[in-house]
């Protein structure tokens, strides 16, 4: 069965610093990878997704992620964070053969300090 591991449960960072949120998934023949963001007391919003093609994926709010098949990783990066990026970030994998079921990682709480 598919699984997703987010290696850091909490990432504190100062405003305007770069950040990387790490995500590894268990290997499969074909997977689709997603990063979602959850602001306090809200639903989830898609940041970006990888379905195929270029391994570097750009998303909203200046985020990007790189799909690395050999390392089964899909790390999320932003070169300069803002206070407003403070939120919970979820990495997820979807196996097309499992009816679109999203399997989520445990989440990483990004805390941006002034």
């Amino acid at each position, binding site marked *: 069965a598919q699984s997703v591991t987010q290696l850091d449960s909490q990432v504190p960072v100062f405003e305007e610093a770069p950040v990387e949120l790490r995500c590894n998934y268990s290997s499969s023949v074909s997977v*689709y990878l*997603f990063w*979602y963001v*959850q602001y306090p*007391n*809200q*639903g*989830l*919003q*898609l940041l970006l*997704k990888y*379905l195929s093609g270029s391994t570097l994926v750009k998303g909203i709010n200046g985020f990007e992620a790189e799909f690395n098949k050999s390392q089964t990783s899909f790390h999320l990066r932003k070169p300069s964070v803002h206070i407003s990026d403070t939120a*919970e970030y*979820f990495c997820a994998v*979807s196996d*097309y053969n*499992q*009816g*679109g*079921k*999203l*399997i*989520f990682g*445990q*989440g990483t709480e990004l805390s941006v300090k002034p």
Partner: protein
Amino acid sequence: DTAVSQTPKYLVTQMGNDKSIKCEQNLGHDTMYWYKQDSKKFLKIMFSYNNKELIINETVPNRFSPKSPDKAHLNLHINSLELGDSAVYFCASSQGFADTQYFGPGTRLTVL
């Protein structure tokens, strides 16, 4: 013009009661989902429906019964509520299995 809406936003009830959560999407999507987020923020799929047909049922207790009266609605009925059912329940929808899932704002269920 909310894409995926859920009602109610908050639900507080006693153990043993029966309650329902409603979900509606106006995106014209074919597939809808229910996810449960526990107190540690872990998200796990419960059900998915495609064109009113059950596709995924993730070993959820049969006290939970989803109902899809039409493509735009997927309601969740819970019988004999237990303390462990306390969580945030999210509805989502997508056009196809590989497409972006759009999430509702969530329903926070508290069982006393």
